[in-house]
């Protein structure tokens, strides 16, 4: 086995050669600290501002509303904790959903220990948060609504525009974790009434360890990291210049190619979903059949467990992921799969395949063929399948 079939692009992506080329001079030639006064540092400072402009334009924001961070998790932490702090006089209630990324959920749980009250909204069987449910959860002391733009596990795209409208009508701040969506779906913070948006570079062929938080002008969010005066005194720490340049370049390519890439990946994903559902019995697709991220396909195969499936796929050179408990080191399977109403034993048999613009049909067909063999092999080893077959004999 020599070739690698990388189908875990929701976890991270390969840095594009064009992105890497753009980054390298900021390690080697223009390594000056962008906060320095001398002319030599000017090139680095200019590159940061150029990236800021590209990112702002991409989401319909102003450059001064983009704040660079160390990634999506930092952005989520900052947005939520700083809002709780800044708006404490107004209230302590936060609304979010049960299927958020842990960067949001664990931050909310942390705040609960510090006097906040959090409503975790249920989702429907496809993982959709209902704007009506958001509205119904609003209290006089609600200060923040945080709902992700698209789910990382099951790919479902949330009705962010409608939820944003609800937030606006009620004068409540709206944060969205757009880590999976940014660069993959069209975003406009004005039309979607978004006050804060988290994004990360490495999900769109940029480097790891860099992201940004969009903060609508006028919000009183304070600094989360204390130290220097970078990012207009709101995010201390020497800029990750090369990383920021790389994120800007990756976003530029992603915006330029979005329509084309999205159409290509969606078609390939549909082919994958159709083949798996038709050829592997006792299988379900998680998340909405159509209203989902272009590159996401999430399945549950009954009677088998996800980690075994992943190990055997890995032996065929295929990288994918699972919401099985065994892959997380915990006993419970993915909170997202449980929130869409799956019983534990079915949630344990999950497989997430996430495609990129470089994935080929041949790779998908090879992968489906392997999935068929592996699922059959594991089922032949499964007491649950044995019982099922005997019961239905």
């Amino acid at each position: 086995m020599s070739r690698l079939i990388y189908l875990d692009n929701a976890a991270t992506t390969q840095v594009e050669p064009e992105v890497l080329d753009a980054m390298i001079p900021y390690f080697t030639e223009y390594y000056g600290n962008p906060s320095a006064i001398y002319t030599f540092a000017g090139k680095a400072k200019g590159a940061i501002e150029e990236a800021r402009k590209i990112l702002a334009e991409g989401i319909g924001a102003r450059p001064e509303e983009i704040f660079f961070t160390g990634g999506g998790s930092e952005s989520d932490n900052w947005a939520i904790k700083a809002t709780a702090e800044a708006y404490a006089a107004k209230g302590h209630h936060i609304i979010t959903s049960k299927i958020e990324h842990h960067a949001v959920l664990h931050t909310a749980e942390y705040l609960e220990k510090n006097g906040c009250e959090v409503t975790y909204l249920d989702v429907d069987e496809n993982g959709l948060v209902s704007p009506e449910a958001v509205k119904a959860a609003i209290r006089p002391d609600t200060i923040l609504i945080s709902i992700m733009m698209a789910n990382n596990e099951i790919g479902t795209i949330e009705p962010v525009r409608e939820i944003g409208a609800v937030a606006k009508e009620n004068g409540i701040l709206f944060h969205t974790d757009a880590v999976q969506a940014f660069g993959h779906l069209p975003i406009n913070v004005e039309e979607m009434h978004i006050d804060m948006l988290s994004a990360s570079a490495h999900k769109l062929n940029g480097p790891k360890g860099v992201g940004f938080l969009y903060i609508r002008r006028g919000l009183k969010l304070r600094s989360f990291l204390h130290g220097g005066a970078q990012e207009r005194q709101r995010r201390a720490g020497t800029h990750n210049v090369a990383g920021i340049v790389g994120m800007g370049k990756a976003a530029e390519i992603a915006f330029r190619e979005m329509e084309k890439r999205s159409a290509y990946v969606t078609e390939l994903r549909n082919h994958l979903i159709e083949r798996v559902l038709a050829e592997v019995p006792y299988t379900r697709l998680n998340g909405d059949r159509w209203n989902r991220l272009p590159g996401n396909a999430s399945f549950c195969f009954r009677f088998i467990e996800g980690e075994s499936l992943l190990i055997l796929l890995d032996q065929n050179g295929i990288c994918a992921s699972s919401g099985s408990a065994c892959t997380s080191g915990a006993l419970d399977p993915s909170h997202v799969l449980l929130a869409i109403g799956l019983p534990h034993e079915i949630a344990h048999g999950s497989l997430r395949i996430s495609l990129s613009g470089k994935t080929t049909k041949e790779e998908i067909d090879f992968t489906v063929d392997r999935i068929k063999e592996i699922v059959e092999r594991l089922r032949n080893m499964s007491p649950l399948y044995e019982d099922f077959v005997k019961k239905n004999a």
Partner: protein
Amino acid sequence: MYSEKVMDHFNNPRNVGEIEQPSGVGTVGNAKCGDIMRIYLDIDENGVIQDAKFKTFGCGAAVATSSMATELVKGKTVQEALQVTNKAVMEALDGLPPVKVHCSLLAEEAIHAALWDYAEKNHIQIEGLEKPVADIEEKEGAEETTEGY
């Protein structure tokens, strides 16, 4: 993450399958935590385990511990089989990651459950065998060691 022996037993599991009219069969674990093991034993009139088979729903470690446990009890007497503890299974596999230790406990418990079934069917008592619990997570004081990992 896994030792070579664990990977070997996962990739080429020994004794997968069922035994028609087994002397004893035991199923333990629960789907909630993601592991279910069933072990079948064929025990002759002298109390020697002639054959052992298993079926397992679970992770790589669950499959490997089932495979190893069935290997270890084959050819042993019922009394000897009781000495096949979770620690013995782990040692034979060159250790397990800490989060997977419960898989070896499950394998030990599955053997005990099959032996219990055998004892009940034959109206005998096996010295030192306690009634197994169906769900290993409920068992207290089990030997948890990650030695050799």
